[in-house]
């Protein structure tokens, strides 16, 4: 198992007031993303648990790319990965932020 944590300093806070959201399922080719509004507005954190080792660079690139184009300030996104491809990871991250960016 591999565990990675990525920290980011970001400009834009994730909109909405919901504190918690979850998307996805841990299954082959899939992943779950638990997103919690627990950090300061300018911080963002992505925690990855994956059973597929050796793709640290890819994770870093995919996640970093997502953070760059998204208003995700204040969020911790925790991932349990079932062996998803990069495009699925990006999709789930986007769904997770969209879910929490609503009003409670």
């Amino acid at each position, binding site marked *: 198992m591999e565990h990675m944590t990525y920290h980011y300093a970001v400009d834009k806070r994730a909109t909405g007031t919901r504190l918690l959201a979850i998307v*996805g*399922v841990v*299954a082959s080719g899939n992943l779950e993303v638990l997103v919690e509004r627990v950090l300061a507005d300018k911080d963002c954190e992505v925690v990855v648990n994956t059973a597929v080792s050796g793709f640290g660079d890819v994770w870093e690139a995919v996640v970093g790319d997502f953070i760059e184009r998204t208003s995700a300030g204040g969020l911790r996104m925790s991932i349990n990965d079932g062996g998803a491809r990069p495009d699925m990871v990006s999709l789930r991250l986007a*769904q997770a932020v969209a879910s929490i960016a609503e009003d409670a």
Partner: protein
Amino acid sequence: MNPISQNDGHAQPAGAAVTWYESSARQRIDGLLDTGSFNEFLGPEQRETSPHLAMFDLPEQFDDGMIVGRGQLDGKPVFVAAQEGRFMGGAFGEVHGAKLTGLLRASRETRSIPVLILFDTGGVRLQEANAGELAIAEIMRAVYQARLAGVPVIGLIGGRAGCFGGGGLIAACCSALAVSEQGRIGVSGPEVIETNRGIEEFDSRDRALIWRTMGGKHRWLSGGADRFVDDSIEHFRAAALDLLGTHSSTGLEVLQAEQSRLERRIERFGKCEDALDIWRSMGVATPSALPELDYSSFMALGDPIRETRDDAS
């Protein structure tokens, strides 16, 4: 706090009814209960994951594939448990099972709130086999004791893992079951029978055979389930409401009636080689056409002839 997301990547065509089969456990709960009424116990943010999967280099899921909580169905309180069939095949592990055990024991204490169990399981999670088996034993006891205290425990079956192994035994402890055509209920799965007894005994690649033997249509006709529903969340919701509205009890007389019914089933059908023989024996003129019948045609044919369960009238 209700963190349920409606969208986990299963694109439903706009305007189409949401199918139960394709939905995740969270989507099923969301569609089943009154909007926004679900309050989850020990939700994913608690991170109560399996302590055993890491040893096998397997990924965890934050809710360990079992979601429990309380919500409302048509304004009335219900306890709900839903299995995520796509995580480890919906199989029972230590934490997964214990969540349902706790919910059922609470329902016995509370007495006034019924329980809905959304089954989607292959049985025991082998990586935690002993804990899974024990959880199932504890759940069977907790289901039946809740029922003895007057609590209805309703099972809904229609997911891609079906309801197998110990899950099939728990289901048969429930007050009543609703099953869709896609649902399957059994103890030994097709592959297990084939591996142990050979392909002549059961060809696990013969999907038609699987559905004739264990599928929702056969179970409903033969008395293994109480309601047959179309594969939509809306239909399952209606069936749950319907079953909750029926008076269900248990006790010696009901168990004796069940005993007679099961003995009669063996007398009537114990020599049948295939479900087709059973259906023919029940009065179906063209049993081979039965699997292809659409919902309404099948209901029209089956309703007058099906076997019913005594403890869910």
